[in-house]
């Protein structure tokens, strides 16, 4: 296709993207409108935000959470809801400083209340210190601790919902990873309802946009920052699944979206037959756990030796 033929399906301006389902080309202005409309439709369809909600955005300062805050800031007032940002500072030297600066800049510019919670305050040490001797498990350890830290941040700001920046790629990768691990309970796990007294409902408004669409959105709105990649990024399986899915998405457009629909179908049909797993409270910290001691306390006990 020549540049002259590459025109927006709606206005005839030069197109910046070509999208499928339905097939269309969009210029910068119409792509921004289209992406925002899809997110807004998902929020309404799944009743993610209700009047009176205080929504905490998990703001790492990276691309996905930046886009999430920008989008929610645009339309949250129309829901009669309130917005606050929570950033977890894990303490990763050479990486976190820059992303926290980006988070501060963005919340300052938008006038959004911002709270930072640190691993050091919550767990007695930063991630670099907690990982000494098990650096290869970086993502797993960080994932467990970060979820707890976010939950603590949400409690501190009194939020009723936690919005995270998971995108379509993240969600599709998780579906495939759970299938490859044979982990049906995790495939069925739905965190959107929360657990009164322990977790507020988690919402993922960006799960309808691909990573590429999110970066395009940020570039077009002038908010893309080429930030460093986390030194602990990517487990072996997720990296493999990411490459595999990227190849499939290129050769068979719509693959990621179909995986999400598959997951939703499995959840709908399997949930009534699946007995609820009994949860108890951790004997050390009192948070919910499937066993006697929660994962966070097990990790911290390992550190103490």
């Amino acid at each position, binding site marked *: *296709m*020549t540049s002259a033929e*590459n025109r927006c399906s709606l206005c005839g301006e030069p197109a*910046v993207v070509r999208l499928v389902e339905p097939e269309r080309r969009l210029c*910068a202005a119409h792509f921004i409108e289209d992406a925002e409309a899809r997110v807004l439709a998902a929020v309404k369809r799944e009743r993610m935000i209700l009047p009176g909600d205080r929504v905490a955005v998990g703001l790492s300062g*990276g691309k996905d*959470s930046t886009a999430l805050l920008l989008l929610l800031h645009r339309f949250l007032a129309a829901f009669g809801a309130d917005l606050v940002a929570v950033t977890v500072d894990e303490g990763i030297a050479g990486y976190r400083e820059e992303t926290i600066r980006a988070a501060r800049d963005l919340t300052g510019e938008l006038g959004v209340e911002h709270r930072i919670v640190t691993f050091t305050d919550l767990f007695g040490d930063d991630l670099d210190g907690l990982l000494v001797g098990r650096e290869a498990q970086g993502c797993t350890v960080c994932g467990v601790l970060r979820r707890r830290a976010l939950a603590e941040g949400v409690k501190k700001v009194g939020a009723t919902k936690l919005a995270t920046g998971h995108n379509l790629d993240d969600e599709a990768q998780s579906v495939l990873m759970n299938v490859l691990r044979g982990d049906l309970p995790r495939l069925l796990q739905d965190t959107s309802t929360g657990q009164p007294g322990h977790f507020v409902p988690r919402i993922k408004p960006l799960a309808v946009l691909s990573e590429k669409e999110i970066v395009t959105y940020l570039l077009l709105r002038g908010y893309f920052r080429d930030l460093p*990649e*986390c030194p602990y990024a990517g487990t072996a399986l997720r990296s493999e699944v990411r490459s595999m899915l*990227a190849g499939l998405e290129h050769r068979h457009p719509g693959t990621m979206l179909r995986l999400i629909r598959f997951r939703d179908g499995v959840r709908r049909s399997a949930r009534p037959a699946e007995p609820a797993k009994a949860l108890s409270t951790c004997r050390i910290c009192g948070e919910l756990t499937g066993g006697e001691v929660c994962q966070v306390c097990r990790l911290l006990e390992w550190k103490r030796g």
Partner: protein
Amino acid sequence: MQIILPDRSVRTLSRASAPIEDILLELGINPTTVIVVKNGRIVPEDVTAEEGDELRILRFSHGG
């Protein structure tokens, strides 16, 4: 045409014209993992690049 790769190194291709998607695949780059800026403007990868064009390929890092 001149191609600025994600690591900021520059390659010059002597081809007269080719779809950007073909150029990316030749370079071993999956088009779904990058954004292409042609002469300063983001374009879909099925657009053709001509001699004299500058293509900048942006790879977005993971996480965020």
